[in-house]
């Protein structure tokens, strides 16, 4: 038991942990010397804080600004074990690519609708779809297709103006809210969230 021999007595460790109210006096006399050694060890910690260079902020912001243009193409690798809702690592974007105003008819007033592109970056996915209030949450109704860009899935839909809730479905059973969009609880408990798109 070499390790035990060279280690501190449990009571000395309690002293170091600050758990002996009377300090050294709470220890058996035979342990005092060992306790002194232990306290000297703690006294040798360096409490000084390094000076962080003023340039740090500028360097961080330069890196961040350089990413701004690329932010919407950010690739976050999506793996099955990362898909717990709290850890959802999808980079998702919704682009409004056009606005269509349907002509009013005698029966219906003018209804604005918009063309929306849903994009999910999921390099490891085999299948991706989007399910939401606009397709009765049917995971098979609106598949996304692979784009020319590696790992990027997309689908373009025309949706009526108003509020839509949606989530992406990866490989048929992993529901992923859009972490970059507003989200609300899905109403079923369990902590899952739906993304909200307001057109």
């Amino acid at each position, binding site marked *: 038991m070499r*390790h035990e021999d*060279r*280690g*501190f007595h*449990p009571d000395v*460790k309690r002293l*170091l*942990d600050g758990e002996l109210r009377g300090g050294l006096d709470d220890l058996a006399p035979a342990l005092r010397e060992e306790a002194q*050694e*232990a306290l000297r*060890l*703690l006294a*040798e*910690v*360096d*409490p*000084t*804080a*390094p*000076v*962080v*260079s003023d340039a*740090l*902020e500028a*360097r*961080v*912001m330069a*890196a*961040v*600004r350089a*990413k*701004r243009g690329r932010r919407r193409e*950010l690739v*976050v690798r999506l793996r099955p074990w990362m898909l717990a809702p*709290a*850890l*959802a*690592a999808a*980079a998702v974007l919704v682009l409004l690519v056009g606005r269509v105003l349907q002509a009013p008819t005698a029966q219906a007033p003018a209804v604005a609708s918009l063309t929306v592109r849903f994009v999910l970056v999921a390099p490891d996915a085999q299948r991706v779809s989007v399910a939401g209030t606009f397709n009765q949450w049917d995971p098979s109704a609106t598949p996304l297709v692979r784009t020319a860009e590696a790992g990027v899935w997309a689908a373009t839909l025309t949706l009526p103006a108003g509020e839509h809730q949606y989530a992406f479905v990866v490989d048929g059973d992993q529901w992923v809210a859009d*972490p*970059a969009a507003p989200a609300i609880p899905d109403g079923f408990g369990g902590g899952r969230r739906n993304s909200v798109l307001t057109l």
Partner: protein
Amino acid sequence: MDRGEASDGAIVRAVLAGDVERYAELVRKYRDRYARFAARMLGSSDAAEDAIQDAFVRAYDQLAQCNEPDKFVGWFFLILRNRCFAERRKSKDRISLDAAQAIEAVERTDRDMETAERRRTLQLALLELTPEQREVFVLKHIEGMSYGEIAERLGTSVPSLKMRMHRAYDRLREQLRDRT
């Protein structure tokens, strides 16, 4: 507009909404907070600064995943901590040398030199611990956090932290005996 009072959550949401420049407020506010932690974890001020810089950039990349924007700093700490763990695995030997040099740089008088020498010895011994052991030692004995606070921050239990710490005490004792 006075933004000095803006909550972290408000800043995070503004950045996510596209106001990237406001990220500088978070950098300014927290750049120093964990500098000492990073320096003791990594063994040098330079390595600490690199780690803090990387952690801020990484936090920006992952900002949409910050589930509780008002607790940005706790989340940032975990990113920095992971960065420190990775760095130590990557370049253990180089950093040990840096550690000695960085601490030598602050030696001035004889008495300071003695203190610095003892601190350097302990710092080098700290670098021989596992990152998990070193972390709990640094948070408790350098940052002054309680076991309860550390457990909450790291999402672990007090008994497991104590077990780590007690192994750290033993290893430090061995290290210091070997070095003196």
